[in-house]
């Protein structure tokens, strides 16, 4: 009896403490992102990003410029590599202490947004945050159910890369303009045949159906929006099976880069070791490809689908502010500075993707023939093809994307059939994604 009474006392105490804590954090939310920025008050902001040491140096440079312009704001920075970044952010999110401003990825936007961790930045529009330089489709990619939770800093879009030096060695022409997915498959078969005599053997391409984004690209070209507005799958098992079957012949005739070798050279790809003639991926991989292969890499738009060659912009990176920040106005100001300031565009170049605003794109000092110049040129060329905003990935996208990739590896090892793949993936997706409301 005595023990029970004591225990209830402890519980009551804990509850009171919890109430006091929530009261504290509630009190700080008075200032809004739409209030004018106080230029007198000493403000400290935290800024977090993922990336390597090169990016760290660039950010430090940009932050210095910001602090010069806003002397009353002190920005403390933190950075780690991609995987560790999310481990750290998840822990902070659990305690409601996310950094004031942080780099955000499209695949995590909905998850953090649904948990109420991110600030709706639309309050700050036209006050502390100018988004007039962003294209509408792009800005829309940072909204979840009407709330502007992320501001795209830069864009990328899918592209087909080919290694011109390898093509010359095996005597192949690149795919012709306006090529379709079927043309691409034929091209891969032919390139693999011609590359068989090389040492090491050159393959035409890889079995691209293992990447969920390519499936989404193809759906969009068929006029199907991959996900519904409330974050559910919007395609059928038949659609998925048809996509997977589309390269069945390539798999059966060993025309694609073998999975055994892929596993050996991970995290590189066949294309990066010049054993593969072409590869599709995001256009900002260009710099990495050129650095890895040291060869002449060229870039083409994605193949056309049933309804034509539509593509979409994906914000390669967004900036978000924490819902619990004490300084929403200053946080919005920092985001504004990072996306609009021409000098910041000059500092980063295309290292985060092509800058989202024209002011920053124009400020980049592009050397003719450089990788930056080619990628920027590519995005200008395909701008007309971009008619869709990026499909907003659903909550749990990271997991279903990884499962798609894993099942595809099983498919290549012939451990599952296409039908089993589709069945297992849809079951996994149903378990992983939050049910429709």
């Amino acid at each position, binding site marked *: 009896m005595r023990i029970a009474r004591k225990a209830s006392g402890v519980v009551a105490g804990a509850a009171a403490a919890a109430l006091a*804590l929530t009261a504290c954090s509630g009190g700080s939310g008075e200032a809004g992102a739409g209030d004018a920025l106080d230029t007198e008050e000493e403000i400290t902001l*935290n800024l*977090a990003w*993922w*990336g*390597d*040491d*090169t*990016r*760290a*140096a660039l*950010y*430090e440079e940009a932050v210095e410029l910001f602090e010069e312009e806003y002397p009353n704001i002190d920005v*403390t*920075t*933190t*950075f*780690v*590599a*991609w*995987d*560790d970044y999310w*481990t*750290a952010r998840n*822990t*902070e999110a*659990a*305690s409601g*202490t996310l*950094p004031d401003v942080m780099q955000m990825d499209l695949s995590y936007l909905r998850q953090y947004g649904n948990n109420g961790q991110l600030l709706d930045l639309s309050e700050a529009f036209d006050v502390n945050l100018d988004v007039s330089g962003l294209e509408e489709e792009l800005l829309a990619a940072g909204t979840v159910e009407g709330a502007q939770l992320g501001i795209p800093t830069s864009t990328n879009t899918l592209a087909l890369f080919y290694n011109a030096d390898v093509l010359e060695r095996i005597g192949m022409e690149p795919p012709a303009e306006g090529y379709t997915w079927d043309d691409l498959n034929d091209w891969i078969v032919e390139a693999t045949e011609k590359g068989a005599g090389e040492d090491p053997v050159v393959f035409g391409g890889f079995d691209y159906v293992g990447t969920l984004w390519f499936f989404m690209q193809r759906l969009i070209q068929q006029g199907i929006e991959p996900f519904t507005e409330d974050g559910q799958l919007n395609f059928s098992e038949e659609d998925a099976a048809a996509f997977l079957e589309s390269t069945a012949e390539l798999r059966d005739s060993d025309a694609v880069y073998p999975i055994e070798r892929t596993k*050996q*050279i991970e*995290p*590189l790809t066949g294309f990066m*070791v010049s054993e593969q003639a072409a590869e599709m991926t995001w256009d900002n991989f260009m*710099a*990495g490809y050129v*650095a*890895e292969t*040291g060869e002449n890499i060229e870039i083409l738009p994605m193949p056309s689908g049933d309804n034509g060659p539509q593509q979409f912009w994906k914000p390669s990176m967004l900036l978000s502010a924490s819902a619990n920040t004490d300084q929403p106005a200053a946080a919005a100001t920092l985001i504004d500075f990072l996306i609009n300031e021409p000098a910041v565009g000059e500092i980063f170049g295309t*290292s985060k993707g092509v800058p989202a605003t024209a002011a920053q794109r124009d400020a980049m000092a592009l050397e003719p023939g450089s990788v930056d110049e080619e990628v920027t040129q590519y995005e200008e060329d395909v701008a007309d093809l971009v008619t869709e905003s990026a499909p907003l990935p659903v909550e749990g996208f990271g997991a279903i994307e990884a499962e798609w990739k894993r099942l595809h590896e099983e498919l290549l090892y012939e451990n599952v059939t296409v039908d089993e793949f589709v069945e297992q993936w849809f079951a996994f997706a149903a378990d992983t994604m939050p049910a429709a409301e």
Partner: protein
Amino acid sequence: MKATRRLRSLVFHAAAVAASIVVLYPAVWMVMSSFKPGNQIIGNTSILPETWTLENYVTAFGGIGGVPFTSFVWNSVVLAVLSVVGTVASSAVAAYAFARVSFPGRNVMFAVMIGTLLLPFHVVIIPQYIMFNSAGLVNTYVPLLAGKFLASEAFFVFLMVQFIRGIPRELDEAARIDGCGHGRTFGLVILPLMRPAIITTSIFMFIWSWNDFLGPLLYLKDPDLFPLPIALRQYVDQTSVSDYGAQMAMAVLALVPVALFFIIFQRYLIQGVATQGLKG
């Protein structure tokens, strides 16, 4: 008879050498890769670099994002040394209390302490983080060290308790007769006899702290405070260009102190484990 024995010995040694080559290959590969140019590392299993370069070490010594390499080393050393000091001091006192002082609730508390061994670190991360955060101690070394000074490393407390239990009580009683209280019995009799256990604890704690990644990742925000393991991961970011050469170089540099520490103390480590059974 003699010939068979020699043959057996030969086979045994051949097998041992073969096994150690397999085991050591990754380590040797790492050291040699740190001398290869960045693009010749992944997908290349050969040991000898085609071209030798010191470029990777230059990059590694150049630091990350304006933080010099020496800063990472210094932070790692500070954390490791304080962890060792804190763990040894607090665990020894706690172990003496559990082993020699009879106080109410001793058995229950001992059981609770052992119980914490069963609690995976990942279960307590978030509550701990919230606690340290509301105390305003995030982004300092306090969350990483506080527990070490409070004997929260139950494994070492347990190790020392078992060790002290093996020391004959007659020694305590003799000290008692000479007029020692608990303080002096511990300081003058038990502590000197605990040397093997203390050395074992120090070595393990040093290595654990040196290699700890998750704790610093969560609690430290300011790159100036980062220890080596976090800096190490910085070179390989899958979303930007990865510099495997610099990572290998940094890994080699990070391993040097642990390797040295191990070489110097391995005598004691093996001795320590061996004398665990001898009971002082």
